[in-house]
């Protein structure tokens, strides 16, 4: 039903995992982030996650914390998010937003959903909103046709996985490791197990994030998940500007294409 379904229909049709790249809006500037995100899409990201810079990002490691601080110091305002999403969408890209919940709550959950949908955004990933607390969001996302991407973690019980995926649409975000964001040499062995446990409860695509930074890791993750989510590594490569993120996107896009397709 949501706008994300065609993205995964295509990647599944091609027998590969989707590549999802993250970058905060407004990093290093509003215009700069638009160029970077367009470059990421152009070089192979099937979907981008546009992050909302936030003062207290408790799920993020040092790289994304620093990027958020840079964006906020450069004067990022929440309304700039919609500018970024609109620019990405108009260029033919597919975008979801990743945001801690307080900025949305403050803006007004319905107003945020309305404005995001109007800008062409397809859904929202909510790292600190669980479905139990999300009544407003469930209603607003229905009203404005946005997908709800909730998270599951290695520590989630079967019961919680079941209730979380039941409230989700578009895809489910599986956090590969217990910890904060940041590139790692190894993606946790817990990831494959979590994906398997989650599949038992849903036919939604499952994306795996936290720690992926190389084409080889992307290939590994794409062998058991429907999407590979890469964040901190893109933020780091953004130091080299558009060529940096394009190079990484291309490497990762090759990775998801060399993997054995997931069964499911």
């Amino acid at each position: 039903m949501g706008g994300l379904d065609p993205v995964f229909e295509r990647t599944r049709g091609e027998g590969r995992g989707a590549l999802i790249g993250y970058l905060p809006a407004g990093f290093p500037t509003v215009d700069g982030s638009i160029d970077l995100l367009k470059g990421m899409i152009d070089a192979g990201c099937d979907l981008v996650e546009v992050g909302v810079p936030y003062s207290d990002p408790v799920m993020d490691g040092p790289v994304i914390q620093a990027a958020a601080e840079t964006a906020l110091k450069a004067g990022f305002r929440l309304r700039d998010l919609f500018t970024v999403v609109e620019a990405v969408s108009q260029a033919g890209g597919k975008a979801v937003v990743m945001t801690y919940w307080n900025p949305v709550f403050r803006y007004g959950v319905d107003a945020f959903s309305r404005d995001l949908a109007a800008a062409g955004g397809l859904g929202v990933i909510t790292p600190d909103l669980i479905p139990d607390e999300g009544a407003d969001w469930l209603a607003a996302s229905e009203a404005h046709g946005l997908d709800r991407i909730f998270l599951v973690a290695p520590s989630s019980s079967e019961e919680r996985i079941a209730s979380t995926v039941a409230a989700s649409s578009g895809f489910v975000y599986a956090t590969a490791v217990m910890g904060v964001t940041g590139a790692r040499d190894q993606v946790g062995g817990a990831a494959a197990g979590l994906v398997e446990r989650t599949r038992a409860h849903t036919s939604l695509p499952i994306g795996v994030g936290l720690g992926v930074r190389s084409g080889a890791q992307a290939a590994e993750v794409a062998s058991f998940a429907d999407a590979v989510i890469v964040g901190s590594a893109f933020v780091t490569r953004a130091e080299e500007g558009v060529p940096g993120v394009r190079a990484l996107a291309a490497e990762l896009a090759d990775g998801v294409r060399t993997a054995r397709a997931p069964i499911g």
Partner: protein
Amino acid sequence: MTGEHQVPAAADPHQPGQHDPDTKGHFGPYGGRFMPEALIGALDELSAEYDKARLDPEFTAEFTRLLRDYAGRPSLLTEAPRFAEHAGGARVFLKREDLNHTGSHKINNVLGQALLTKRMGKKRVIAETGAGQHGVATATACALMGLDCVVYMGEVDTQRQALNVARMKLLGAEVIPVKSGSRTLKDAINEALRDWVTNVDSTHYLLGTAAGGHPFPVMVRNFHKVIGIEARAQFLELTGRLPDAVAACVGGGSNAIGIFHGFIDDPGVRLVGIEPGGKGIETGEHGATLSEGSPGMLHGALSYLLQDEDGQTIEAYSISAGLDYPGVGPEHAWLKDTDRAEYRSATDAEAMHAFQLLSRTEGIIPAIESSHALAGALKLGQELGPDGHILVNLSGRGDKDMDTAAKYFGFYEES
């Protein structure tokens, strides 16, 4: 006073009651769990263990024994007549949490949660600290119970409270200076949460205030209820009546919620929280979350919050390292909205005046945090007049604040 005041408060602070939040931790619309899914399992485990423990006579007896034999409870109730001369002639009574082991109310909650940590079979404890009082109390309980202890403390605060850093280290804790964000209490909590999500299987996050995701607000409150229960009985014994007002400082709000709950069912007793007014509300440099903030989420609960138009947290300021927190416990938000409690602020200058005044009139050096409550009492006394009876929660002692005070009053220049 009327007879209704003489109804004894519930004596058992651990029994579930009408002031508990709903099963998901909501006080009215506030509280709840605005937390990453990765931590929900740990919060569920903690809730389940706490719900069992609070009804387990062995647990509550051990907690009560530690409060008595280790922390030194009950703490005294001391009348402060020379101080009260400056409070419009009202009678002022101090609940002496400063006399507890480690020098503040923080030990109550810490002993309770450390016992729970052992029940859960966890060996490692992490904590955040602002002024250092909660960090010292946590390091103390971990030393007592043989638990590994890591304390996150904003880099700015490690400098303001160097003595408490030394105390924690002596007690065997590792102190990690936090260099992110505003480098104060809020960022210490962020960093502790990042540690917790990484090490949740082995580690209990011993949160120091009545904030955070459920069950922290209700659990921390219940561990501190002993303050109010003792104070109510002592006040009745000493004066034959209840106070007109109970004043307590509010940063995160743990000492205030603890003493308030002794009187929450006494409608004639005003509950007055005093927030840090910093350099003055009009300057924007303050920590008066309930007075000046608006509803929002921080560190896992919906409550009042100092935030800008976009929902970005605004950094709080206070001369007191224990009060400069831009959030506040969710039950205080509910008490404010329902008008059961009222919240005011005292500036740095008003607090430091009260700090010096209590020292010189009563020979008691209060924590700068608690001095905000004393400053509030000076005003309440003026309002109530000579018939007024005020109870102040003297939540901590001021030894840790000597460097700040000496600089503030220019003592170093004199010598």
